[in-house]
């Protein structure tokens, strides 16, 4: 008896670590699916605010909003004292949470003028639901910003497949999906040296396919009604994918970053009369009236061109006045020290600054023209999004209009108004809670609710102020960067240089160490960047790391290729 008890205890002890490990892997279900967010500023919708109220959510839905709301006894109470709660944001176009199929090396085509459809980028029958991955890092980044819903599309160019509207948090790919086949997705880009290769071929192929689909659909209808005297129609998946578009049940969603591409999408809409959704538009201000007249639904890009640093900008704007007068009178004493090249550079800088301002002002122009618009994040870097939103406000967009473009308008454009977009009774419990107004520079997202599931954000307090732990980066570090191609090892070195640092990075596919630029150590946050040459095009790599003693951890962002996790440990001193 005694022995037996001992054996059991021993086995228990032996098993314990494994059991704990299992618990680590599988998150505990919350004890209740009822939450009460109390004493919170509730921004129910743009222009609709309740100060210091309570939001109750139960089983994925908002069940009570207001002051003096009774809190159910089973509720997990979140004391959100003086915090702000908004409806979860909606993203009109992204590939966050969508797996990119591995690129296989494909054999050279014998006749590139008549490729199989998939080689030409024509796979409209594909469904993004087959590629969903709820644990994708990019999806987590999007959610951490407050986006709870997104329209996602498969990877590919011309006609990669159908889009879906998904939640940014769910236990499985299928559980993410709110609406499947929300739109047929297209990009006006051709295949590489395969027909259609250029915008010329792409536009023609689009018209050809669409009209063939109209014909096939009509014939199928004819055959279904009466088979007499008719050949049996054969099934063609590429054409069938257009049927819901032809029936006006779903729109065609185009990624049109440039207004010329948006114009081309409008041309196709006019030629073929489908309903049109434009997303990721960046320079659409000159075609506002045309978009308005077309009735197309619009999602503007949250990517903005990098701002010129304020000091430089000031220089440029004062210098340009001088440049103007100097041009007329070269002997002007003001311009004595400036060469013609300086003046030319200043004039070009000024035009560039104006162009950048136009991009930041796009949303405001659309607001003034009375066009409904949402936002899309496809080509935006997550970390830039809050700052870009503030730039749009500085460029004239009102906070209410901005909030509408993140919540109520996209809900309306995507046909989701009945279930999301505002903080109201009966809506899905998609919420974002911030410690300050979302558009405040210092605001931090504290909680995000997706479909009633709480995600608590880790707040990284800058260790700058406490001064107890001194962060030292000088020396050499071994790093590992995860990418879809596998892990890549690298070496970082830092050397003190006055009050700052110099450094290099090598490893991976970088043959010789590259110099790091803009090295900044702010508390435990280390940022720097460097340039890589892929072929002729320099690609800027931006790195943000948190240093903790002899380890560092963070994200490296390679141009527009994506963001990858990076980790490192300090090499022993030699």
């Amino acid at each position, binding site marked *: 008896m005694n022995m037996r008890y001992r054996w059991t205890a021993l086995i228990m002890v032996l098993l314990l670590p494994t059991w704990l490990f299992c618990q680590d892997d599988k998150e505990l279900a919350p004890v209740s699916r009822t939450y009460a967010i109390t004493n919170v500023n509730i921004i129910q919708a743009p222009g609709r605010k309740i100060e210091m109220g309570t939001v109750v959510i139960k089983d994925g839905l908002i069940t009570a909003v207001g002051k003096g709301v009774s809190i159910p006894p089973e509720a997990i109470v979140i004391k959100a004292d003086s915090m702000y709660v908004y409806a979860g944001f909606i993203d009109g176009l992204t590939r966050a949470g969508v797996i990119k199929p591995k690129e296989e090396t494909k054999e050279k085509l*014998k006749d590139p*003028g008549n490729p199989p459809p998939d080689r030409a980028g024509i796979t409209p029958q594909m469904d993004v639901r087959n590629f969903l991955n709820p644990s994708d890092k990019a999806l987590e980044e999007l959610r951490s910003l407050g986006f709870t819903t997104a329209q996602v599309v498969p990877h590919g160019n011309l006609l990669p497949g159908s889009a879906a509207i998904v939640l940014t948090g769910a236990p499985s790919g299928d559980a993410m999906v709110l609406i499947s086949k929300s739109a047929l997705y297209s990009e006006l880009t051709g295949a590489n040296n395969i027909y259609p290769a250029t915008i010329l071929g792409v536009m023609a192929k689009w018209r050809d396919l669409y009209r063939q689909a109209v014909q096939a659909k009509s014939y199928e209808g004819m055959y279904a009604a009466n088979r007499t005297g008719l050949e049996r129609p054969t099934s063609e998946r590429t054409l069938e994918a257009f049927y819901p578009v032809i029936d006006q049940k779903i729109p065609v969603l185009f990624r049109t970053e440039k207004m010329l591409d948006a114009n081309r999408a409008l041309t196709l809409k006019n030629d073929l009369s489908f309903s049109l959704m434009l997303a990721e538009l960046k320079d659409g201000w000159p075609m506002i009236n045309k978009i308005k007249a077309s009735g197309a639904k619009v999602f503007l890009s949250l990517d903005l061109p990098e701002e010129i640093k304020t000091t430089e900008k000031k220089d440029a704007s004062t210098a340009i006045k001088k440049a103007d007068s100097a041009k007329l009178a070269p002997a002007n004493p003001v311009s004595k020290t400036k060469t013609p090249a300086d003046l030319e550079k200043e004039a070009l800088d000024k035009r560039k600054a104006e162009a950048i301002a136009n991009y930041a002002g796009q949303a405001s122009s659309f607001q003034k023209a009375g066009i409904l618009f949402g936002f899309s994040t496809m080509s935006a870097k997550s970390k830039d999004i809050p700052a870009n939103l503030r730039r749009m406000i500085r460029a004239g967009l009102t906070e209410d209009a901005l909030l509408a473009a993140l919540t109520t308008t996209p809900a309306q454009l995507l046909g989701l108004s009945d279930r999301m977009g505002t903080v109201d009774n009966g809506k899905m419990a998609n919420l974002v809670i911030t410690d300050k107004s979302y558009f405040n520079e210092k605001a931090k997202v504290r909680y995000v609710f997706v479909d009633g599931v709480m995600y608590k954000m880790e707040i990284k307090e800058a260790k700058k102020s406490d001064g107890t732990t001194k962060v030292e980066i000088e020396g050499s570090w071994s790093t590992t960067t995860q990418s879809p191609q596998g892990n890549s090892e690298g070496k970082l070195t830092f050397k003190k240089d006055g009050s700052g640092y110099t450094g290099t990075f090598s490893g991976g596919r970088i043959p010789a160490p590259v110099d790091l630029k803009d090295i900044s150590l702010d508390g435990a946050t280390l940022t720097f960047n460097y340039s890589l040459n892929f072929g002729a095009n320099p690609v800027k790599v931006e790195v943000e790391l948190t240093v903790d003693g002899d380890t560092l951890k963070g994200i490296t962002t390679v141009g527009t290729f994506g963001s990858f996790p990076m980790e490192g440990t300090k090499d022993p001193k030699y």
Partner: protein
Amino acid sequence: MTLIDINMKKSILIVIVCGFLTVAYGQVEKGNVLIKNGTVLTITKGNLENTDVLIKEGKITQIAKGIAALAGIKVIDATGLYVMPGIIDAHSHIGLDAINEGTNAITPEVWTGDAINPFQMSIYRALAGGCTVSHALHGSANAIGGQSQTIKHRYGMFDPDAMKMEGAPRTIKFALGENPTNGGRSDDLQPQSRMGVEFVIRQAFSEAKQYMERWDVYNKNKSVKGFRGAPPAYSLRYETLADLLRGKIILHCHSYRADEINMVLKVCKDFGIKRLVFQHANEAFKVAPELAAAGASASVFSDWWQYKLEVYYSTAYNAAILVRNGVVTSINSDSPDLIRHLYHEAGKTQKYGGLSDDEALSLITINPAKQLGIENRVGSLEIGKDGDVAIFKNHPLSIYGVPQYSIVDGIVRFDREKDPGDMRLMPDPKETIDVTFYETGHNHENCMQGVEQLFGVNHNENKN
């Protein structure tokens, strides 16, 4: 200058500076202008000294002496200046984001009208050379290339559709010789020889004919009561070729050698195609009477050849010989550089061939207009025609001729006196500003653009 002029310039400036658009989008802007006291070169109706030209709502409404200026109308004092119709280029590739869909031997379904880029500086530069209309041609990478678009140089408009000359007939580009066969040989596909080019064209025409007939039969049967049957499969490719066979599209054929020009004349005769323009046509002088008899025309260079083997046999007298044989002839640029001084190119025919002033100027005005099917709209200064005008200091055929104003639809789109250094409409917000950068002289806006890599050819050898 007058108020309207200042306002116009201002609005362009506002567009440039603020990106704020005041102009009506997607619509053709039309203006009013009175050009006073110039030497008017009408091209079709002689020269008129000290004469005024009045343009109202974009159309020429009066050509006479001493026209009174209406209140508020822009007036250009052309005393001592030469007033001619805006220059027309029947072969150019400016203002296009893509020129060649060279991936297949036949691509008649594609259309350069889909690739218009109204922000290209080459459009403004063409205006600075008095050129107001150009034919934005598909390239010459394949035997049957794409449909092309005649554009008006309305630089300052942000809408690509506003560049298209409304009502201009449809055109299509074919190509013979080295360019399309290069592609065939590199992929081991048809065509690989001049014979192959003929075969590809004839085969496409035959298939288009069958396509057309299948539809005709179907449409006829469809109206019969009780008819049951499937429609022929739709194809934009053969729809387009069928329209060409029906005479709805003007054929512009890239060609150099006399033998292949003859070949295409025969093919077109066999398939009933009547509206035919040979582009480049360096050996057209050898078959000038045949061209005249067939009613085909030619659009040539003044004195540009030897850039590849098939262009070795050539002469600067080509244009003059064609004119003397009664062939409607134009001189084209095929280049964003030459398009800026087509008046020089036309002037060369006076040295090589002794053409008269009107004959020489016709080569860059009314004749290209005929080749594009727009001669009722532009190409000469006549009442009722579009208000497209180029105003020169010194005679345009003189080596001292310098364009001063270019007017499109009654709107001054280029004014030498007000020509800011930076005319870009959409500057790149991510550009790297480097004022030490100089052009390397490579010319990418040519017929083989986008396919050099495809065919592995050296693009220096393929200027056209």
